[in-house]
């Protein structure tokens, strides 16, 4: 529990979960708390340090979304519009966020709602979690009016009138409410219910390379935006060059005339500070930005940077000879900006004989592994995953089949090769599956297939189609 001084009173500033269970809460007089819990452990509050660590946390949270704002003393706003799909869904994003925080030893609660006010109310006074779009009013109405961020004196006045819940306050006639309690109570109510817009001003950590451009006349045309992005990128790259760093992730924030904001985020596969290249990564996605009545400020932030000392110099004469080890970084970035860097990859061999496990994905720019699969084992070019059951007839047990029926077509086998046995790999968690006998068969039409039997014939093995050579 931490304590601080308000005027002449000593007041509880923060209490841990155990203390909260004992009935202590933020804003309680210290004397009262000590009366409740005799051997109370308390520490003098250090608001500056708290603030610094909250900023540190905000910087970490930029990994989730470019728009992160502080809600002092103990909260963060994260605008997840347009980023939730990267984590699967809003629920999964929350789960990921909470579990990472818990692992760092931070007790945290999070909520997702349509508007910042509602999310604030639900995370502090409600159950947390995700409020579905359009259900904000229902979710907030049952909460205490303390969830509205109203000044304490107004709160006690409302209490005296017997108004305890947000729903009650919302049901009151608007004009007398404003006359009696002032405009800010009505505004907070509207913000929580989603009737009034509330901007989240992104916090940009101090030493992050940033380039911004504000316009006297709002702009909205795509060509203008393109030009602005290029200019910002040039500016940013100059800063990065001075610091000897390159950008791994860029956030582009737009401030619209109506205070709404939009943002785009791109990543690069390798630290980079080539302005034209970085600006190009935004090209495709700029058209998804809705400029509304106009954009009055654009900010480009290099939110993730890495040291990059050497400056890449393009040697014209060497272009042809160096084709074998050409720099693929820019191509990978451009592809990544279109489909996401996770879906641009290389496949590296894994020492395993189970076909489904023979390759693993590695980043596209990982150093060459040099490893190959064993070349004496012929492998198909296409794999059917999962394998499909075929009905096959072999002349003798443990011989390749003579006929098989796959997808209602009967194939007669002209030649075959096999078996090649693969055994389940218990060290990889294969428990239930059994050994497979693979045969390469060629049908009378010339098609070559990779089929396997999952057990010896005597034990009732079934046949499966698994791949295609040709």
């Amino acid at each position: 529990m931490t304590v601080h001084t308000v005027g002449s009173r000593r007041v509880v500033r923060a209490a841990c979960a155990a203390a909260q269970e004992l009935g202590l809460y933020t804003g309680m007089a210290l004397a009262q708390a000590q009366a409740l819990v005799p051997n109370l452990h308390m520490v003098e509050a250090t608001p500056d340090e708290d603030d610094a660590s909250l900023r540190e946390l905000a910087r970490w949270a930029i990994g989730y979304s470019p728009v992160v704002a502080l809600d002092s003393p103990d909260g963060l706003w994260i605008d997840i519009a347009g980023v939730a799909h990267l984590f699967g869904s809003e629920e999964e994003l929350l789960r990921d966020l909470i579990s990472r925080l818990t692992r760092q030893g931070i007790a945290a609660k999070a909520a997702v709602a349509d508007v910042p006010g509602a999310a604030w109310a639900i995370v502090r006074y409600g159950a947390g979690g995700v409020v579905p779009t359009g259900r904000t009013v229902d979710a907030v109405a049952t909460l205490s009016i303390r969830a509205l961020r109203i000044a304490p004196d107004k709160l006690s006045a409302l209490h005296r009138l017997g108004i305890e819940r947000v729903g009650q306050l919302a049901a009151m006639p608007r004009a007398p409410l404003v006359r009696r309690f002032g405009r800010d109570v009505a505004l907070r109510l509207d913000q929580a219910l989603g009737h009034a817009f509330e901007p989240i001003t992104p916090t940009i950590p101090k030493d992050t390379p940033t380039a911004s451009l504000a316009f006297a006349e709002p702009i909205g045309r795509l060509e203008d935006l393109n030009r602005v992005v290029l200019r910002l990128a040039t500016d940013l790259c100059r800063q990065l060059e001075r610091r000897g760093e390159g950008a791994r992730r860029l956030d582009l924030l737009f401030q619209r005339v109506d205070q709404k904001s939009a943002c785009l985020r791109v990543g690069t596969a390798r630290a980079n500070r080539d302005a034209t290249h970085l600006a190009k990564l935004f090209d495709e996605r700029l058209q998804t930005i809705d400029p509304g009545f106009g954009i009055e400020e654009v900010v480009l932030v290099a939110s993730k940077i890495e040291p990059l000392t050497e400056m890449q110099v393009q040697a014209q004469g060497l272009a042809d000879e160096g084709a074998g080890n050409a720099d693929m970084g820019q191509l990978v970035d451009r592809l990544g900006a279109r489909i996401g860097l996770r879906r641009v990859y290389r496949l590296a061999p894994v020492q395993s004989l189970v076909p489904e496990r023979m390759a693993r994905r590695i980043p596209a720019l990982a150093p060459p592994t040099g490893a190959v699969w064993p070349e004496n084992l012929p492998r198909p070019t296409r794999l059917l995953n999962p394998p499909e059951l075929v009905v096959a007839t072999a002349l003798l047990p443990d011989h390749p089949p003579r006929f098989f029926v796959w997808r209602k077509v009967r194939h007669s086998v002209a030649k075959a090769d096999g078996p090649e046995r693969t055994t389940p790999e218990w060290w990889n968690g294969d428990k239930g599956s059994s050994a497979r006998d693979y045969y390469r068969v060629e049908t009378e039409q010339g098609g070559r297939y990779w089929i396997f039997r999952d057990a010896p014939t005597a034990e009732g093995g079934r046949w499966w189609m698994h791949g295609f050579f040709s």
Partner: protein
Amino acid sequence: MHAGQQDRLADLRHRIARLEGGSQKIKSLPFGLREIDGHLPGGGLARGALHEMIEAGLASEFAGSTTLFTAGIAARLRGPVLWCLTRRDLFAPGLLRAGLHPDRVIYAEAEREGEILPLIEEGLREKGLAAVVGEVTRLGLTASRRLQLAAEATGVTALVIRRWWTLAEKDLVHLPTAAVTRWRIAPALSELMPAPGLGRERWHVELLRCRGAEPHTWILEACDAKGRLALPADLADRSDQAADRRAAAS
């Protein structure tokens, strides 16, 4: 045809080539087989051009032979290869059979069919690549023309494998495209071995369309570990049956 006509023809060809913007001489990649290279203009598969591969046969939706044929071409070029795909049925160890080393291939996996053509074009604009392989269902005239122009500009070879899952999608393959060559590969019965086992695969390789050459069909042996095709020994070295027939008829 006497000498004057031949000169005039050569002059016309030269002028057409200049009109088509081929100011720099188009390089080509020979197959290393006299029969094919002699048939193709330029003595091989043109680099910096769009080539289209279609699979025929019973399991044609899986494009097993075409994949190996394409991998063989890519393997014989120098430099990294971009492979754009939508489905995850590609089995990378199989590509090694044609000599395409896993370190050389960068995969770009699109979620939707519509994303794949921009990816291929993006790849074709990168000079350092040897080839871009794309697995495409829909390829119209406009789209293929765009890819062809992008390939011409940088000299990167575009290899498109046509894929389909439904019969309606399969029919799309017959529509015209701006590809420089169009190939159809079908598996053929391989040589009978004296003992049980499988020999080298054989393919019916059909050149369906090629600018400046007639369509033609070959029976070839599949790519070896260096990506080279071969003419089957029993077909290449057999006696000329046409001569026998002529002798029998006379």
